[in-house]
């Protein structure tokens, strides 16, 4: 046995090589053990036969696939052997044409441990959120009721102090919501409820949601849409959340009587949504960190922001396979722009049947 063969057999990941005619040219020992077969019997046989063997373990929809349309692909598959369920990441790469016979190489990495950690993380987020909300309910409830006068009169000083407690509690609630959202995005556990929608409707909804805040700050809101938009596939609640975040930021940083405009445009590939304000603007040195976590400008902190809004907004747009950026000039205002792709969801069979595609 050659040294190369020893090396490949010692890998903890399963390895399969198919030639240009879709025949098995190599199976390492790890994959052979996963499939309970002897590698020697399989060399030279058609990959479709091997696929049938694999489907006994990776049932029913998450069968391994050898016909990746792209040069590289990666996804998770479920692997059930007797009573044991494991998760594998299947990486597939086209062999270079100069390699003997071309073809594909497929690697199977056991990611069960990572999945278990993800699950624990998700449970932790859920439990932590619940445990934080419960005492916040009592604090907020009690303070609100006292402030309402229900429990008797309060002196102006007491009133002022209770209002501080109330404001801080509301901020804490927003912070818990934001941390929960961001944790889900970062753990890849945000579930999008996709539907075909017109971003105009979502923008109008977001404007209505932010209007009370704008009225209070004497800022005018407007939606500009020169032409009807093509439909996009997106989660309406999450896109509304993204636009609402951008709008409330724009309002916070706008001078009285300022205009905040949502500009909606499209081309053949994208629907674009820009939120433009006439506020103080962002210095060039700060632009690169604006989408970071807790990277607030002082005005944002003063106005009760959590410092996570833009990080969440970027995460939400990324999840939709869109892009987001900012343009700003100090003293002239800021323009946040995001784009959503028109009709570019992955085809069923790859990511959707198995849950999610793994980001490269």
């Amino acid at each position, binding site marked *: 046995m050659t040294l190369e063969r020893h090396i490949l057999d010692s890998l903890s990941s399963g390895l399969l090589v198919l030639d240009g005619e879709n025949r098995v040219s190599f199976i390492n020992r790890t994959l052979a053990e996963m499939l309970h077969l002897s590698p020697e019997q399989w060399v030279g046989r058609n990959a479709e036969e091997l696929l049938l063997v694999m489907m006994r373990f990776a049932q029913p929809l998450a069968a391994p696939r050898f016909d990746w349309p792209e040069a590289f692909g990666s996804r998770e598959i479920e692997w059930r052997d007797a009573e044991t369920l494991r998760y594998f990441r299947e990486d597939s790469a086209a062999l270079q044409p100069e390699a003997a016979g071309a073809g594909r190489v497929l690697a199977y990495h056991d990611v069960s441990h990572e999945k278990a950690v993800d699950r624990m993380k998700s449970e932790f987020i859920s439990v932590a959120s*619940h445990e934080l*909300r*419960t005492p916040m309910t*009592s604090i*907020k*409830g009690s303070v609100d009721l006292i402030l*309402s006068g229900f429990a008797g009169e309060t002196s102006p000083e007491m009133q002022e102090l209770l209002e501080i407690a109330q404001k801080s509690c509301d901020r804490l*609630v927003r912070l818990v*919501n934001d941390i*929960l959202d961001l944790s889900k995005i970062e753990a890849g556990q945000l579930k999008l409820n996709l539907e075909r929608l017109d971003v105009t409707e979502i923008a109008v909804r977001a404007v209505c949601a932010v209007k009370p805040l704008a009225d209070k700050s004497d800022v005018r809101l407007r939606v500009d849409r020169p032409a009807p938009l093509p439909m996009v596939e997106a989660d309406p609640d999450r896109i509304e959340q993204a636009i609402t975040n951008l709008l409330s930021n724009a309002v916070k940083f706008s001078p009285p009587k300022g205009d905040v405009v949502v500009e909606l445009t499209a081309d053949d590939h994208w629907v674009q949504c820009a939120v433009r304000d006439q506020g103080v603007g962002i210095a060039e040195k700060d632009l690169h960190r604006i989408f970071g976590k807790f990277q607030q400008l002082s005005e944002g902190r003063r106005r009760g922001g959590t410092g996570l809004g833009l990080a969440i907004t970027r995460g939400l747009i990324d999840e939709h396979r869109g892009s987001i950026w900012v343009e700003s000039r100090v003293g002239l205002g800021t323009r946040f722009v995001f784009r959503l792709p028109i009709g570019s969801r992955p085809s069923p069979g790859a990511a959707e049947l198995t849950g999610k595609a793994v980001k490269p």
Partner: protein
Amino acid sequence: MKLTRVLVVEDDADIQKVVRMSLKMRGVGEIVVVDSGSECIERLARFTPDVILLDVMMPHLDGYETCRRIKQDPATCDIPVVFLTARAQKADRERGMKLGALGYVIKPFDPMTLHDQILALFPGAAGGKGEKGAGGKP
């Protein structure tokens, strides 16, 4: 329309008080508070409220299971159930709504508007949408 009889199912003593005061402030005459899902089922044999406000995370019989039992019993299935819970994730809401709840209100709620929020969930109420909460998003 106004709520007159409310059954509150909540295991946290402090939140029990806040809910009770919040409803009392809005003139709800009869507020019965119980600590657990099983007590709720027992109480329904002799008390028919306008609405049940049901927490989810409770020992032994949780809110989901309590709701399932209420909705399965012909004697209680018509009593509206509104979840009042700190379980704020979208999947939790969907689970609650699938069990036949009228609505899902997330903690922390606003005690000043809790009564109206619940009323708005009833069919025919203006703005009734089924899912509300001061804590807002999932």
